[in-house]
C-alpha cells in the first residue's frame, strides 16, 4: 500500500529559482539561503520518495481570471515549466504518477472534497522552485510529482481548517492506493511577505517562528488562524501558509521535526523551510 512518510514545507520565492538557474549559489546574498537546504538535500537523497504530492499555488501562469479553482489536482502524465513572462525555467518537465493522481481525485470527491481536475497545465515557480531547492539541477526529476494547486490569490482562499481537513482526506486517499509507494506531501509558499501597496516589504519573523514551532507544538492553533490574522501579521501574501496546513493535516498526530531553516530576506520574502517525519 502507498504510505505518507514525511512532510516538507518551503517558501517558493521565484528569485530562489533564478539563483539556482544562474549559478549564483555561492553569491553572498544567496549562500545563507541555500545552505539551509543542504541537510534536506542529503535527507531526500536517502529517503528517495517515489511520489510527492506538491501543494502550491499558481501565480497567474496556468490560471488567469477566467478560472479560479479553489483546489485543483493535476492528473496528466506530464507538466511543462511555465513561461512566466521571461521564458520557462531551464528545469526538466514534471512527471506525474497519473494513476495515483486520478485515484486521489476520485477518493477526495467521494470524501466530499469537490476537486477540480486538470490535465493540460504548465507549472510555475510555485511548484518548480521547491523541487530545485531539494533536488538541485538533475537531468530529470528523480520523483513523480502530483501537483495540487490552491487558490490563495482571489479572496476568499480556503480556510486553514478546510486545508487541514483536505490534508486528512489526502492521507486517507493515499492509504487506499494499492501500489507500494513511499509518498511525501509538501506544502509551499510563505512565510511572511507583502508584495503590494505602501505596506509592501512587511516581515514578521516572530510570528513566522511561532508558526514553525506550532507545526509540532500546537497544530490545533494553526488550524484555526483566521485569514485576517495572516493579513495583518504576515502581509497580504503570507496567506500562502494555509497551504502548509494541507501538508500538516495529512501527517496525522505523531510527527517529529527533523530540520528547520529560516532566513530574511529573499527578494521581498521571509524564507521558511521545515522537514517533518511521520512517526509510526
Amino acid at each position, binding site marked *: 500500500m502507498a504510505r505518507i512518510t514525511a512532510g516538507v514545507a518551503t517558501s517558493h520565492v521565484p528569485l530562489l529559482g533564478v539563483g539556482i538557474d544562474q549559478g549564483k549559489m555561492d553569491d553572498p546574498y544567496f549562500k545563507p539561503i541555500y545552505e539551509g537546504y543542504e541537510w534536506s538535500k542529503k535527507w531526500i537523497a536517502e529517503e528517495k520518495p517515489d511520489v510527492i504530492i506538491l501543494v502550491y499555488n499558481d501565480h497567474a501562469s496556468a490560471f488567469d481570471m477566467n478560472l479560479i479553482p479553489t483546489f485543483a489536482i493535476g492528473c496528466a502524465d506530464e507538466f511543462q515549466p511555465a513561461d*512566466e*513572462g521571461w521564458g520557462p525555467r531551464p528545469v526538466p518537465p514534471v512527471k506525474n504518477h497519473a494513476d495515483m493522481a486520478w485515484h486521489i481525485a476520485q477518493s477526495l470527491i467521494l470524501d466530499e472534497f469537490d476537486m477540480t481536475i486538470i490535465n493540460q497545465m504548465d507549472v510555475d515557480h510555485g511548484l518548480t522552485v521547491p523541487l530545485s531547492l531539494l533536488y538541485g539541477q538533475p537531468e530529470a526529476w528523480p520523483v513523480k510529482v502530483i501537483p495540487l494547486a490552491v487558490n490563495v490569490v482571489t479572496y476568499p482562499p480556503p480556510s486553514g481548517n478546510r486545508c487541514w481537513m483536505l490534508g486528512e482526506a489526502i492521507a486517507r486517499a493515499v492509504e487506499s492506493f494499492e501500489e507500494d509507494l513511499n509518498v511525501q506531501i509538501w506544502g509551499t509558499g510563505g512565510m511572511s511577505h507583502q*508584495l503590494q501597496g505602501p505596506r*509592501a516589504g512587511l516581515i514578521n519573523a516572530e510570528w513566522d517562528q511561532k508558526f514553525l514551532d506550532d507545526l509540532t507544538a500546537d497544530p490545533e492553533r494553526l488550524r484555526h488562524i483566521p485569514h485576517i490574522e495572516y493579513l495583518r501579521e504576515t502581509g*497580504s501574501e503570507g496567506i500562502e501558509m494555509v497551504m502548509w496546513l494541507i501538508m500538516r493535516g495529512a501527517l496525522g498526530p505523531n510527527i517529529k521535526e527533523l530540520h528547520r531553516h529560516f532566513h530574511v*530576506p529573499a527578494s521581498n520574502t521571509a524564507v521558511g523551510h521545515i522537514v517533518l517525519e511521520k512517526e509510526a
Partner: protein
Amino acid sequence: MSQDIHEYLAEFDDIPGTRVYTTKRARAGYWLNQFAMSLMKAENRKKWLADEAAYLEDWPMTDEQKQAVLDRDYNRLLDLGGNIYFLAKIFSTDGLSFVQAVSTMSGMSEEDYKAMMMAGGRSPEGLRSIKEGR
C-alpha cells in the same frame, strides 16, 4: 463554523497600506488582469513594446485603467482591480524584478527599500490595524 461575509470583508479595509484582492476587485479588474496576462506570450510582448497605447485599444478596460498602465502607477492599478501576480507580467516585460517593482508602491527609493529588506523587512508594528492603531 460559517462566517458572516460582510464582517469578513469589512476587516480588510482596516489594514494600513494594503488592498486585499476581493471578488469586487477581481470583477472590476477582470480585463486589466487579462490584458496583463496576454504579456505572457513573447509575440504579444513584442507588439506591446512596439506601441503600448495601440495594444491597449484592443482591451475593454476603462480609460483610468489604461492610463494607470501607461503610467506604471501600481498602487492605482491595485485600486482599479489589478492583482500583483497579473501586474507582474507588465513589470517583467519592462525588465523589472519583483523588488524593483514592489518598491515603487512603498513610497521608498529602490535602494532604501532594498536596505530595509536586508535589515529584516518592514516591521508590522503599528501597521496591523488602522482602528486599533497597533
